[in-house]
């Protein structure tokens, strides 16, 4: 799978205008070279070879961690990744935690009190949550909490003066909450229907008829079982999370991969675009494999490769 995608990405990269030598080399060094030296380098990188041979050479370099250079700044792509990846992961993990916890708790509450006013309000609120553009939500949050109330900073990840983690949390609250809350609605709907499903099962009736208190039936017997599909959903939500992080990072000027990707697309920095896209795909595939393994561990009915 990953191989097919690398192939597509290389094919797209090959289609883009511009001489590939410009992103294989440090641009400053390239500027100092003479014509014949460039030709020699082209031969060395095998740029005049047929397409498939070029692809495998490129793949080989990729496996060795050589991702080429960003044609705008001349920084190796791998360096940009190393600088920006922690920020994105930080944001993504925080948002994932918020949306999973909030979503499953609200969803389960809705399912237990099915048909009540609270449940209906939650359902409608979830629908509204799905419909508001993420960036619009983010912009409104900036306006209220940063510009009017001045509780939180407008954007960025840290101050030059602030070094410790506690100082940085202030910067993280808003982007993480916005990203998390905008994803909560989906989890909530899913958790609700999953919980409703579970509550109709026979063993819940058995638990009730044993005279167990209602909270115990709901929590121990219902919630635990209905959680598995919710975890599976985490895997499906990763693409949304990544797409969201591109938007949210731009809104909050968060120095992560998403905003790097956005500015690379804008400045038509093709090599950087493709490499970051490859990183996103890799992250998604890795996470979905992880979810598969986790599901198999949680639910004995699911077997890997079954």
């Amino acid at each position, binding site marked *: 799978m990953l191989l097919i995608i690398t192939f597509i990405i290389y094919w797209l990269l090959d289609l883009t205008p511009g001489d590939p030598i410009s992103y294989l080399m440090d641009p400053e060094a390239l500027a100092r070279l003479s014509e014949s030296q460039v030709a020699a380098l082209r031969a060395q990188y095998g740029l005049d070879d047929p397409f498939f041979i070029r692809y495998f050479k490129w793949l080989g370099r990729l496996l060795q961690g050589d991702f080429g250079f960003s044609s705008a700044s001349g920084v190796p792509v791998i360096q940009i990744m190393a600088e920006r990846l922690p920020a994105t992961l930080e944001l993504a993990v925080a948002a994932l935690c918020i949306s999973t916890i909030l979503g499953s708790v609200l969803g389960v509450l809705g399912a237990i009190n099915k048909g009540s006013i609270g449940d209906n309000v939650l359902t409608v609120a979830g629908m509204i949550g799905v*419909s508001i*553009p993420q960036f619009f939500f983010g912009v*409104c949050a*900036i306006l209220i909490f940063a510009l009017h109330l001045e509780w939180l900073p407008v954007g960025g990840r840290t101050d030059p003066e602030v070094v410790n983690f506690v100082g940085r949390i202030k910067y993280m609250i808003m982007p993480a909450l916005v990203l998390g809350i905008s994803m909560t609605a989906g989890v909530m709907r899913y958790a609700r229907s999953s919980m409703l499903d579970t509550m109709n099962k026979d063993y819940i009736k058995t638990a009730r008829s044993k005279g167990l208190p209602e909270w115990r039936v709901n929590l121990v017997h219902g919630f635990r079982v209905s959680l598995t599909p919710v975890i599976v959903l985490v895997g499906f939500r990763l693409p*949304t999370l990544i797409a969201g992080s591109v938007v949210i990072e731009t809104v909050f000027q968060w120095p992560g991969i998403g905003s790097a990707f956005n500015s690379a697309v804008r400045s038509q920095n093709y090599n950087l675009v493709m490499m970051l896209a490859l990183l996103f795909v890799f992250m998604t595939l890795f996470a979905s494999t992880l979810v598969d393994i986790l599901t198999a561990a949680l639910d004995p009915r699911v077997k890997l490769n079954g």
Partner: protein
Amino acid sequence: MSTSSKNARLNRKFDQIRRMEESGELKKKKSGNRALRKLLNNRLAIIGGVIFLLILLACIAAPLLTSYSPKAVDMKSILKAPSSAHLFGTDKIGRDVFARVLYGGRMSIAIGFGSALGCAAIGVLLGCYSAYRGGWFDSLMVRISEVFMSIPQLILVMMLVAILGQSAKNIVIIFVICGWGSCFRMARSQVLSIREEEYVQSLKVFGLNPFVICYKHILPNALSPIIVNVTLSTAMFILEEAALSFLGLGVPMEIPTWGNILNAAQDMYTLQNNWWMWLPTGIVVSLFVMSINFMGDGIRDTTDPTQQG
């Protein structure tokens, strides 16, 4: 004795039914599509439908509702707050925001709906045939759609924007390339279950052309989830277009779309001081997408008996 009294009772009942039938009482009760009646009982879907129609009609009738052109620059009235002359105020170069919202809506809705239809067309054509045919063609198509679906959609869209360049037509093409996968899978799974029905077997025995069986006899039975999918993906594409244009990667800036209007909110000064430039637009987009979602859910609840609760 007992049988005759039973017969008499049944006869009475039968007479009653016939009387009702003749006087038209029964017919009245049953007239109208059952699904449609159920949809009309769904309050949220109705609210959604009304909002949807309101915004849609307002956008279509844009020239009647506003005399301003969405592109006309008027340097004399820059950054005016909302007034009776300019309902939503004016922007930095004096363009009327209300006119921009209406005309932009035309573009955004067209892009969203067009992309959703395009995805449905490709997805359904391929999905139906591939499910009906099975074999190597099916497994190849499933593989291809998996590749497309494993790349996060916005990332793929932005990659293609970087390569193809920005224009309204390109955006639709890109959305279709990136979005046909989910519709393909849905159509495929529907047809897979219908394929085993007896009427399909008998059509096969008659020796009908597989294309005729597939598109004329199977497809209509698989249509309702596809319609729901088109509705919901229209909403999704409108959101995606708005996000792309907000990032400055969507439709070129001079063409008004909802996303391009919202792009103004990226500027902190505008954000704080000129709320009318972005807030009404954002609310309109949210309302419109919400109304489509409500309608889509309503249609799904009425047509799909497994999705209730």
